[in-house]
């Protein structure tokens, strides 16, 4: 009877009664799974994260080597890829092998919108410092404005590992909530007439040689500028070179399918599991969520505003909605720009132009991560 009683005391049912925070987090995990399956909100990310949240919040007896924060546990080993920045690098390799830069190379001026949308990062850096976060924590929170999950995780792992769970959940949540966050900001900052601006279909044909040169030029320029971004941009451009070279199709295909999928599964699952209630449910997490929303909104607004400023000087006006795609949430923000543009004028096709800004945003946010990391070294 005593043995049975001891067993009962070790079950999750008994332990959860002592700390209801776990139940809250399990509910959040179920909500994420629901949103990914029923609403199809970023399912590739939210489903592994959501299930990870459920797994990570099943209460257990500390010291058994089960939890993600306990040495020698399986979850701890899997989490190693997050804390070292390994998974984000692998994800970037696959991302590079999936990215088509044709659209960006044919419209280089749209790259500037990718730079402008990174202003949300620096605004949030100031806000986080003002709220009392340390510079390293502020840098980790600010990168949420880049709207790039792997970049956020990478930088947080380097600067403030204790915030990985909160930052990752905030980053991925806001990426999933793009259809809710971005359109009102876009509509608020643009007039109906501006939203109807058509973009030229094809500025020029991009040659294969240009596509081959770009990853090399991009690596040299960006990595020399911010060497701390090498772990992200190095694999990114390498993946792209494999894709465009056409001589290692097998490798490019593997990088853009099996490798990125494997890394995404473990990244999402372990980040979800890292949101253990006793580590995650703190007032700081709420502040991080608030700042993340601010970062994301400012990033969108600064991209749109910059596009409007560019229009003051350009003879051929660009659609300012494209500025919102300067955040690196690929391809969610590009899709949203396209949809908002189509609502204003159904014959307006902005998707390819928005993808150009998106691709530039990925590079921009990785550079920002490198810059922030080097500032805090």
């Amino acid at each position, binding site marked *: 009877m005593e043995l049975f009683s001891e067993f009962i005391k070790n079950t999750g049912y008994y332990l959860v009664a002592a700390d209801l925070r776990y139940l809250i987090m399990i509910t959040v995990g179920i909500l994420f799974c629901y949103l990914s399956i029923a609403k199809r909100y970023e399912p590739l990310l939210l489903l592994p994260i959501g299930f990870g949240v459920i797994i990570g919040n099943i209460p257990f007896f500390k010291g058994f080597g089960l939890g993600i924060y306990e040495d020698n546990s399986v979850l701890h080993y899997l989490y190693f890829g997050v804390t070292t920045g390994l998974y984000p690098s692998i994800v970037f390799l696959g991302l590079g092998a999936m990215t088509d830069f044709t659209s*960006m*190379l044919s419209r280089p001026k749209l790259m500037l919108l990718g*730079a*402008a949308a990174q202003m949300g*990062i620096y605004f949030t850096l100031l806000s986080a*410092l003002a709220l009392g976060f340390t*510079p390293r924590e502020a840098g980790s929170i600010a990168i949420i404005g880049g709207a790039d999950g792997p970049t956020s995780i990478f930088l947080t792992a380097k600067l403030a590992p204790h915030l990985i769970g909160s930052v990752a959940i905030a980053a991925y949540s806001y990426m999933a909530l793009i259809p809710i966050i971005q359109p009102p900001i876009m509509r608020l900052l643009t007039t109906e007439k501006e939203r109807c601006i058509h973009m030229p279909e094809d500025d020029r044909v*991009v040659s294969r040689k240009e596509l081959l040169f770009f990853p090399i030029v991009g690596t040299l*320029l960006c990595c020399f500028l911010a060497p701390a971004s090498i772990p992200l941009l190095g694999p990114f451009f390498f993946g792209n070179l494999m894709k465009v070279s056409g001589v290692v199709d097998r490798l490019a295909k593997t990088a853009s399918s099996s490798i990125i999928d494997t890394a995404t599964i473990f990244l999402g699952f372990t980040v979800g599991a890292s949101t253990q209630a006793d580590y995650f449910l703190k007032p700081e997490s709420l502040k991080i969520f608030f700042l993340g929303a601010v970062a994301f909104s400012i990033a969108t607004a600064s991209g749109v505003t910059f596009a409007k400023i560019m229009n003051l000087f350009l003879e051929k006006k660009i659609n300012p909605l494209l500025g919102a795609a300067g955040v690196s949430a690929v391809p969610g923000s590009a899709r949203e720009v396209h949809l908002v543009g189509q609502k204003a004028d159904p014959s307006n096709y902005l998707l390819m132009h928005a993808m150009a800004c998106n691709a530039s945003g990925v590079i*921009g946010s990785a550079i920002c991560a490198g810059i922030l990391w080097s500032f805090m070294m």
Partner: protein
Amino acid sequence: MPEMETIKGIEAITMHNGWAMAVTGAMIVITGLSVLSFIISKLHKVIAFLENKQKKTTEEPATKNSQPTLAEIFSDDPGETARNCQILTTELGNSFELCSLFSIFHRHNLPHPHITIRNLRSAGFLVPQKDGKFHWKSL
């Protein structure tokens, strides 16, 4: 020992050098992407320039050989065609077998060598000799 109070607001930003970090960071990323944008806007011109240069160097030996192009060889005027074919076959000497002529046409990737030879024969530009060889009609 009393807990140190966390500094907040503008004071915290100033203390942690936040203004400088934000301004410098923003400037670096904008400059970086602007330079990259400028470079890729010129990339196709650089590639075109390099390709033209390469083309010129490969074209030079061709000029030395003064090999006519297909359009030049097969003009609408049969006499002109015969004249051009004659230039290509100078290495054969005054008299030659038709199979040697065919080999040269084939080597130069001229289309339809059989038809061309037949037409040149029927038009009288290729004159048969009694020894089974041919020579060009004087043009």
